[in-house]
């Protein structure tokens, strides 16, 4: 019974972390271009073209 006192908050905190991560990803536009993202990974960047990370 005492183990519940810290196990439950732990479980809740972990899943809450997941929720926060999801909301952050949504807000920062990670789901905006799902098709394009898969192409970007295999794209050859030209030298000096470093501005290719997603913006916040």
């Amino acid at each position: 019974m005492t183990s519940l006192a810290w196990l439950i908050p732990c479980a809740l905190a972990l899943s809450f972390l997941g929720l926060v991560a999801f909301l952050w990803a949504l807000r920062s536009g990670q789901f905006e271009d799902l098709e394009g993202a898969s192409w970007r990974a295999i794209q050859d960047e030209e030298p000096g073209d470093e501005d290719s990370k997603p913006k916040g």
Partner: protein
Amino acid sequence: MDRSLTLAPAPETDHGASETLPETTTVSLIVENMQCGSCMGKIERALKATPGVASARASLTARRVSVTFDNRATEPQKLIDALDRTGYRAAESVGSVDESAAARADDLLRRLGVAGFAAANVMLLSVSVWAGVASDMDQSAADLFHWLSALIAMPAIAYAGQPFFRSAATALRARHLNMDVPISLGITLATAMSLYQTMRGTEQVYFDAAIMLTFFLLIGRYLDEKVRVRARGAAENLLGLKALSANVVGEDGAVRRLQARALAPGMRIQVAAGERIPVDGRVLSGATHVDTSLITGETVPRKAAIGDLVHAGTVNLATAIVVEATATDENTLLADIARLVQAAEQGRGHYVRLADRAARLYAPAVHILGASTLAGWLIAGVGFEQSLTYAIAVLIITCPCALALAVPAVQVAAAGRLFARGIIVKAADGLERLSEIDTVVFDKTGTLTRGEPSLANAARIDDATLAAAASLAIASRHPYSRAVVRTARERGLAFVVADGVIEQPGSGLAARVAHGERRLGSASWVGVDDAEGAGAASLWFRDGTAAPIALRFEDELRSDAAAVVGALHASGYRVCLISGDHAEAVRDAAEGAGIDDWSAEVRPDGKIARLEAMKAEGRRVLMVGDGLNDAPALAAAHASLSPSTAADVSQTASDAVFQGEALAPVIEALKVAGASQRMAIENFAIAIGYNIVSVPLAMAGYVTPLIAALAMSLSSIAVTANALRLRGRTLALTRGKVR
């Protein structure tokens, strides 16, 4: 369900007063032919290479690129020109339609995330409690778990359930029922009763059921919204590309291309044949016919000569005119465009989607079942609490989760599959109407054929002559010249622009070479007696003093036209060709494609009459067309398709637009539409089958709300999994109504 599309008015821009603008602006440019990953890189690099551009990020899903630039160094038109030089057709996005719809989808996704988080945790606690009943969990631990569930579930439901509560409240205020009324009732009752039982410390606590219900329903709602966002985005992209720039004639006679929103009263605007007139105005020069059908509903074109008024949104059909803008309130044009889209969207407003037809029967049935369960158990004398628990179980079990998912899940899968094959479905109910088709009517020019001339007698022209002709033709943008260049390139010939090419508009091209002069153009330009008879569709080429050579052009059939028509015939579709072209050309095309049923020289109103006659025979017609004269027919047909090369109005009026040279997308669209309708009905069968089994059990009191929630989840998963099969399956073309 259908929200009307509204275009936000463009922000007030003060022309010529750039110092009042902020230093940097971000615009969204629509790029029509962004099709693959490497396009994104090319587009971004081209924009970043343009002076004044701070950043550019392309989205392949939306076919847009978001550009941030310095107002002092550049302007959107320059960015569009830069993309044009790289080979991409771009236009500035017109309004916030897409943004607001996308924001709505994002909002649903956020609520979905919260509901998912809560559902996972509540289920975790709930399963422990139900397992604890069988083992040795004491009452105080169960109470603790119940209170924790309440703490997680209630705020989550209050937040995540809002879309349903609002919609139900709206429906009730208007004194009718929709699906959201039983949904809201079920969720609210289950939550309220669970809270009451938690306070009393009993076992009848069903937060798990309430939150799972919310979660699954939100999935369906989100998928539905996503299909709409995609459809609307596609429609808006088309509008932005085709309608919103104008050729303005300056004081010095020079023509500048301006964004339509930058137009002001008093400007003189040149409108080419086939273009939409961007302003309300008065004709200054030229005489033409104007198609007002999409504004006034009249199908007979109106004459417009010098001094006549013309309206924004009408289409100039015959020859180029110059219009002086009178009322170029930028909102007029945008309002007109919004009206066109609305007309296209609402043209089939009477069509009731399968899901809505089901909902109409379903919502009252759920209420009656729930109420009679409550009444029945009260009469049987089990007490109010127990009766209410049974009634809630009925509400939850009948809750249309699987029904709410049945159609959206299939539509997402179908739209995704079609999108990957270059078909953009614009109308939300387009697939459903496509699945009911039994007759396919094609237009000729630009639909069955490529819509651009190609060199017909290329085989009789030798390489050297062709290369010489191409070296002139490459300097011109005339369709015949382009055809010559294309043929030369296809043969792999090497040629460069001839030195000092001059173009005489309406006549031809000429260049001086070592042994005389090369000329490419009309018979009189080359010095040939026209009586020698080359027909209308021809050019002449003379190299120095050599004998002139005739180049003949024709509008070729699309390469797979005959195969597509054959496949349609084989599957039992009736195929017709209705064209406004003259009989000879139509007969040739019909024979080439294998269509027996053809008619020529049909005017736009004649096309509508033909479609109406077919409708009266009980046929469901798919119109495939691209021309301005097809637009009314596209809107009148049961379903319609346009190639992406079609006139703007036609694309607006059609349900789906396909890209590429091949005609095969017509078949693919029919296949996927048929399959998706079959799957939607399969999904309904799964959902209803599950209800038939579980509702009597629930009414008899054998099902607790928790079991109801689990059963409901299973049926939802079954329905979604069924829909996903659509993605990669090989489909067969089968005709007819699915019942």
